[in-house]
Each structure stands twice: as structure tokens, then as C-alpha cells.
């Protein structure tokens, strides 16, 4: 029976089909509906609830490898914060991330400047750059942000920056926005900062690590959670933006449908084979 030979198919056919299913919707979007889920709404609402003009801590703990998933959510978060006229203090705990995060910040800041909003580096935002030490840095920041990051990404003395005048430690921030690709990231911020310094936090994570953080959402340790590209796309829909995540979701859905079909077919073939083996 030819159907039973499906499990011997050259896997390169599967690669080709996945490739086409991803490529075609990127060229000709289908426009499948994207409905924001509760964790994403909570993320959006937690940021919306902080007072306008607050200074917010944003830790972007990722590197170029995770940019397709986390870049869009970092951009949308920056836009939501700047729409509220918040000042943003950015830190990076991944050594390959500081430059790519800087690029993201400047890209979004340029959008605002083009619209006539004069965002100034060091006044409205600052990228304090990368510091090694993982959890130790988080604890050190609790004793003083400037002592943990004496200089910013561009080598300027942190204490001399206007944005840092009212920033001492975690008590200076109403919210921590964490964009996390793994270790160190959301888990460590919850363990070392949220539970110890009681700083409310929301998190955007890579899809592969998202299931690990749902217990934190249920317990209220996280006020909101964005999971992977789907979470980023839902967030963009809530913000009425059409970014890279939204435009990638048709491709994502088509690839998922095909993989689900492969799993079902694989199980059918496996069960049929087993039955045939038992009866012969």
C-alpha cells in the first residue's frame, strides 16, 4: 500500500514544502485573523497602567539569533512606552545583544523624530549596554543602577546623564519590561528582582521558552506575557501596528498546519503498520 510508504519519503520534500509554505504567504499575504489572547492583553494593559512620563526599566536580554521573534516585541514595547512619554533605561545581559538592541532603539527613535517628537539619547532613553555577571548584576542593580553600569553603551558616565538624575535603584521604576531569549532572562529577573525587590514586571520571550513562564503569569509574578512571534503579532494588533511579526504570521500558521498534518499522517501510518504487523 503506497500510503504506508509515507514514512520513507525523502525528507527534503518536507523541507521544500515548509519552505514554500513560508515563502508564498510572505510574498502574497492571506490575511488570517490574529486575535489577542489574555496574556498579551495583560502585557499591554500593564504598560498602559503605569503613569505617563514614568521612567521604566527595560532589559533586552537577547542577541541577533533571536531577533526575528524578539525584535518586533521590543519595538512595539518602545512605541507604547514613548507614546506615554515614558523615559526608558535599557540594559542588556547578553554579550552579543548590546549592538542589536541599540539598533532597535535608534530605529524606533528615528520614527518618532521623523514625526517631530524630539527624542534625545541620554534624556528620553539610554542604553546602558552589556554587563557580564547574570544574576549578580541583577542583585547589584538593586544597590544602585549607576554603580552596576558606571558607563553606558557609548562610554558616557552614567551619573552625568539627565535621564539618570532621578534613578537610584529598582524603586525608581514602576515596571520592568523584560525581553528575554533564555538565560539570563525572565526566570532570573523573577527570582532575583521581582521576588526580592518587588518590582512589577512583564515579559516577552522566545516561543521555545514561553511554556516555562506561564506559572509565573498565573501566580501574578508576571503581569503579562508575550510568547514568540504569535505574541508579538497579537501585541501589534492590539497597538494597531503592522510590523514584522504580523506580516510573518500567515507563514507561521501555514507551516504549523503542515507540521500538524505530518504528525497526524505519521501517527496514522504508524498505527496502520502496527495493526498489519499484529494481524500477519
Amino acid at each position, binding site marked *: 500500500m503506497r500510503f504506508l510508504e509515507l514514512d520513507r519519503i525523502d525528507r*527534503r520534500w518536507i*523541507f521544500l514544502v*515548509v*519552505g514554500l509554505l*513560508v*515563502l508564498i504567504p*510572505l*510574498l502574497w499575504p492571506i490575511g488570517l485573523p490574529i486575535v489577542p489572547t489574555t496574556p498579551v492583553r495583560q502585557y499591554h494593559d500593564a504598560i498602559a497602567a503605569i503613569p505617563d512620563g514614568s521612567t521604566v526599566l527595560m532589559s533586552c536580554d537577547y542577541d541577533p*539569533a533571536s*531577533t*526575528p*521573534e524578539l525584535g518586533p516585541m521590543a519595538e512595539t514595547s518602545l512605541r507604547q512606552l514613548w507614546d506615554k512619554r515614558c523615559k526608558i533605561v535599557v540594559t542588556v545581559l547578553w*554579550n*552579543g545583544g*548590546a549592538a542589536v538592541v541599540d539598533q532597535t532603539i535608534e530605529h524606533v527613535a528615528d520614527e518618532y523624530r521623523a514625526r517631530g517628537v524630539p527624542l534625545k539619547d541620554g534624556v528620553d532613553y539610554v542604553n546602558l*549596554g*552589556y*554587563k*557580564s555577571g547574570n*544574576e*549578580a548584576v541583577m*542583585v547589584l542593580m538593586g544597590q544602585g543602577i*549607576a*554603580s552596576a553600569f*558606571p*558607563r553606558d553603551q557609548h562610554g558616557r558616565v552614567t551619573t552625568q546623564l539627565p535621564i539618570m538624575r532621578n534613578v537610584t535603584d529598582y524603586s525608581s521604576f514602576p515596571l520592568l519590561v523584560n525581553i528575554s531569549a533564555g538565560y539570563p532572562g525572565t*526566570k*532570573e529577573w*523573577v*527570582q*532575583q528582582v*521581582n*521576588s*526580592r525587590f518587588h518590582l512589577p514586571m512583564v515579559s516577552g520571550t*522566545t*516561543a*521555545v521558552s*514561553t*511554556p516555562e513562564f506561564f*506559572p509565573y503569569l*498565573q*501566580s*501574578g*509574578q508576571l503581569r503579562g506575557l508575550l*510568547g*514568540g*512571534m*504569535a505574541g508579538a503579532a497579537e501585541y501589534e494588533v492590539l497597538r494597531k501596528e503592522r510590523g*514584522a511579526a504580523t*506580516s*510573518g504570521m500567515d*507563514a*507561521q500558521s501555514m*507551516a*504549523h498546519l503542515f*507540521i500538524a498534518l505530518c504528525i497526524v499522517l505519521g501517527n496514522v501510518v504508524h498505527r496502520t503498520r502496527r495493526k498489519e504487523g499484529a494481524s500477519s
Partner: protein
Amino acid sequence: MTISGDFGVWIAALLTLCVFSFLYKDNPLYKFAEHLFVGVSAGYYIALNYWTVVDQYLVVPLRATFDGSLPGGPFDARMQDYRAWLIIPAVLGVLLFTRLFTRLSWMSRWSLAVVMGVYAGLKTTGFAQGDLVAQVQASLIPLWIPGNLWASLNAILFTIGLVTSLLFFFYSREHKGVLGGVSRVGVWFLMISFGAGYGYTVMSRVSLLIGRFQFLLVDWLHVR
């Protein structure tokens, strides 16, 4: 369609295609991209770590401390990062390199002991506060929430899942009878969570592919 004129974009695009060629079969183009990536990454991260960690947080502060350019003396705590105390982590860091010499390698254990001690302390207290206590607290929820049937069903389902999954990992008795039945329910809950985890993993991997295709289409070929 106007193709990008940026040399860097061309390099990235061609290397992406070299890596994709592995999906057909292993070939010299893929090997070239792989070796180039490993070599460049190693060099890049060594340079990055030196300039963003060793130089910024050790060499510069130590130099400024001892060349007399700062007031207050080398051990003045008011100087924040400019403290001569940094000599201690500097020595511990150098000791790590004694692993390269067989007769002196025992000295690197002192540095490792400090690292392990600090992180064991941080991890233990962090886990106890952030996971153990908070999660146990969050698991103690009322099963019946008046006026909210959906939330009540959710709470009951959550509690059944929690108890049966925990009992699955109870190995002091053979999984037979009531314990066997309960732990079988726990297995179902675990399977559903593994399925969700697999789904999210697929999403992550497909996102990477989408990211590369978006780069090729938008940044390189300027298609959209």
C-alpha cells in the same frame, strides 16, 4: 525590484543561501559558511568580551585608581567603580588561566570556588523566593469561585493536574490500583504540556526561518 547595493547585506544573503544549501545535502558551500561562522564568532566574542568587560570594568578603573588621577586614594569607597579592590577579581581571573599549566592548575580552583559559592547562594535564595514559596502560594486556590463557573472549572482542572502530576513522580510505591490510575491521569496532563512545549518549539524554529526569508525578501531583494 531593485536589489540591495549594500555589500554587507550581500555577504549576509549569500551566506544564508550557503547555509540553506545544507537542506539539499552537505556541500563545500555549507562547510565554508559553517567554518567562517565559527571562526568569526570566536574572534568577535573574544574582542567583544575584552572591550566590554575586561577593559571597561577592570583595566580602565584600575588604571585610573593607581595613576593618581582620582582624588580620595585607591581604596575610597566613594569612587564607586574606581576602587583598588578590583585587584582581587583581577587576580582571581588570572588564576583561572593556570589551568593551562598542569603543575599550577590547582590554583584555578580558588577562582572556581568563588564563582560557585556566589552563584550557589544567589540561585538558592532566588529559587526559594521566586519559585518555591511563590508557586506553592499560587497553587493554593479556592476550587469554587461563586458566580464564575469558568474560573471554578479552571481551578478544579488546575488542582487535578497539579496533584496527579505530582503523584506520577511518587516512586516509593508501585504505580498500581488507585495510585496507578491517578498517576495515569498525571501522565495525560504531562503529555498535554509536552505537546504545548513542542508546539511552541516549532513556532520558535519557524520564526527563525521567517526571519531569514524576510531578510532575503525585504533587505536583499527589496521585494516588499
